[in-house]
């Protein structure tokens, strides 16, 4: 059993690495590398949500707020505080963790839809602050992000960013898989199924939820920081409610609780709009329709439903 877990953990990572290695070979232009980089970045944020939603069963409709905090950290740190961009990047991720700790402590007592509305409120407030405090954040028009230099090497160009984001995703995926197979992962999945029973065997449910929330916020913060650094410009739109919904949608469409599901979900919602541009004004309608169709026919998400489909037919 354990062997099976380890092999499938390795298999997942190897497969992901393979895809990451193959995409640049197939990509006809650096535009495709950019799209792929975005897939990796949003997959990273979705992975954080997978830990929170998929493992621990706690929903957050405000995760774009953390994406925004991470993104604005790398913009505001160098521009207003004179900090090094790389340092700002890590500070941003840490700030996400801190904010998640402070916010999560009271609101994670709420359950189900009540937690959903509380996190939604958190996300809205972050977006509102980014929008309104123009002196610091640049307001609705956004803010320039300083280019990052690492040991004298200026990180720029689609290819470079492709490998940076892919590397971040690989690390994120490895950590998420680590948790899944660990004692902590078991307690998260346990409290997902029954909080009463988890408490009944001594699991500190509140602390575990908080840990998952903090980790997932750091994931989103890192993703936000990468997004800002790669784009070189960021707007409060990053933290918008629709982005929060999009992140949740990635997790659900891909397959809740599955690491590859987060990647597939991110690919679905990042690549699809690019593909649908040929439909021009029908784009929105078809996007909505596709989401409905996928969720109706693959209710557990693309990866999980297909997995189940195959397992059911396996001899």
């Amino acid at each position, binding site marked *: 059993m354990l062997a099976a877990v380890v092999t499938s953990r390795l298999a997942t990572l190897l497969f992901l690495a393979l895809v990451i290695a193959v995409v640049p070979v197939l990509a006809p232009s650096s*535009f495709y590398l950019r799209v792929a980089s975005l897939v990796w970045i949003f997959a990273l944020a979705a992975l954080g949500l997978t830990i929170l939603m998929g493992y621990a069963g706690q929903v957050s409709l405000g995760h774009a707020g953390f994406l925004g905090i991470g993104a604005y950290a790398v913009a505001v740190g160098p521009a207003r505080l004179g900090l090094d961009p790389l340092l700002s990047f890590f500070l941003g991720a840490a700030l996400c963790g801190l904010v998640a700790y402070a916010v999560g402590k009271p609101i994670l007592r709420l359950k189900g839809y009540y937690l959903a509305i509380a996190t939604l409120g958190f996300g809205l407030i972050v977006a509102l602050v980014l929008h309104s405090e123009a002196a610091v954040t640049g307001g609705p028009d*956004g803010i320039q992000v300083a280019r990052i230099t690492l040991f004298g090497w200026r990180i720029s160009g689609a290819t470079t960013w492709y490998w940076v984001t892919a590397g971040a995703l690989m690390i994120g995926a490895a950590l998420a898989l680590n948790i899944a197979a660990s004692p902590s992962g078991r307690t998260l999945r346990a409290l997902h199924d029954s909080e009463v029973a988890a408490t009944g065997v001594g699991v500190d449910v509140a602390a575990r939820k908080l840990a998952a929330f903090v980790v997932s916020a750091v994931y989103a913060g890192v993703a936000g920081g990468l997004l800002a650094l790669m784009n070189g410009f960021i707007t409060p739109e990053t933290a918008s409610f629709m982005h929060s919904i999009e992140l949740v949608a990635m997790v659900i469409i891909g397959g809740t609780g599955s690491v590859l599901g987060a990647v597939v979900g991110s690919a679905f919602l990042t690549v699809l709009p690019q593909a649908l541009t*040929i439909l021009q004004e029908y784009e929105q309608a078809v996007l909505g329709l596709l989401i409905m169709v996928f969720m109706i026919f693959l209710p557990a998400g693309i990866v999980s439903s297909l997995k189940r489909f195959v397992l059911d037919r396996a001899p």
Partner: protein
Amino acid sequence: MSKTAVRPSALRAGAFAALVAASFMAAPSSVLAADPIKIGSVVSATGPASFLGDPEQKTLKLYVEALNKKGGLMGRPVELVLYDDGGDANKARTFATRLIEDDKVIAMVGGTTTGTTMAMIPVFEDAKVAFISLAGAIEIVEPVRAFVFKTPHTDKTACQKIFEDLKGRKLTKIGMISGTDGFGKSMRAQCLKVIGDYGISVLADESYGPSDADMTPQLNKIKNTAGVQALVNPGFGQGPAIVTRNYAQLGISVPLYQSHGVASKSFIDLAGAAAEGVRLPAPALLIADKLAGTDPQKAVVTEYKKSYESATGQPVSTFGGYAYDGIQILVSAIERAKSVEPQKIRDAVEATKNHVGTTGIYNMSAKDHLGLGTESFRMLEIRKGDWVPLAGVQN
């Protein structure tokens, strides 16, 4: 167990590969007959800024259609590669990359909001391709970037126009209510920058969200502020219409100034009787039919208005006008450059002189990538449900 563990990942591989493959096949490959000239555009045709992006998109499409009917450009058809960023700067940036890397456009007219424009600028600067933006903020062309131009007047000129008018009426204490969207916030900031030059002070400074449905609480506060002599509302979309209605509802008696953000005749329809007496700075486009026959802009403005309104059935808006000016400047530059080489196009755009557009008369230079002065704005007042140009401020 260890046997079956391989299966799901194999399947995952298949599913993912299919998805990736689908994404690559989905690249559009519509090819026109005789090697078309590709002009790119990224606008916010949906999302919160669709109020701006929609007329821009329609204008660009109509213009290119008409151009191709007339035989295209330098004997070649023009292909407009148009993407909708939904108002999202990140998406805008992706589409900009796509225009450059994949579609290989020779120039770009677009960028509905300041945010999306700023996000796209590095792409065009790096690729050395001209980018004519349709967004308002001054930061787009100040400092001057080699490949970035814009057509809309800056908010600053609108503010100056309003303050000039206020000064003429000896109104020096105002209340402001601004939208918190990019347009409103940027214009508010610009107004506060130049307000000192006119000896005008702001006694009450309120704001409203982009999708707010009721501004009576804010307006009531301004109403109760002693000494307010006029009300200025920087904003676009439905905001100014609701502000105008609430202003009438509360029976506020001081004059109300709107901005060029109200942009089209539909404002008068939405605000109804409440719009009576409202003043605003606006380009000639809004009063096409009232322009004197000698007015230099008469011809271009009438032509655009006619073609847009007959094709879409909707009233023409200044935002569409920005796009019209942008594509015209570009097309004329290509004609003058007699080349589709991006560098030459850029040089030709920068050399634009006395170009009569719907917004004003453009005179660009190496130091000015906008080339409009305050005279491009006309002060209008709404009377009996129609725009009336105010005497004395016409040029």
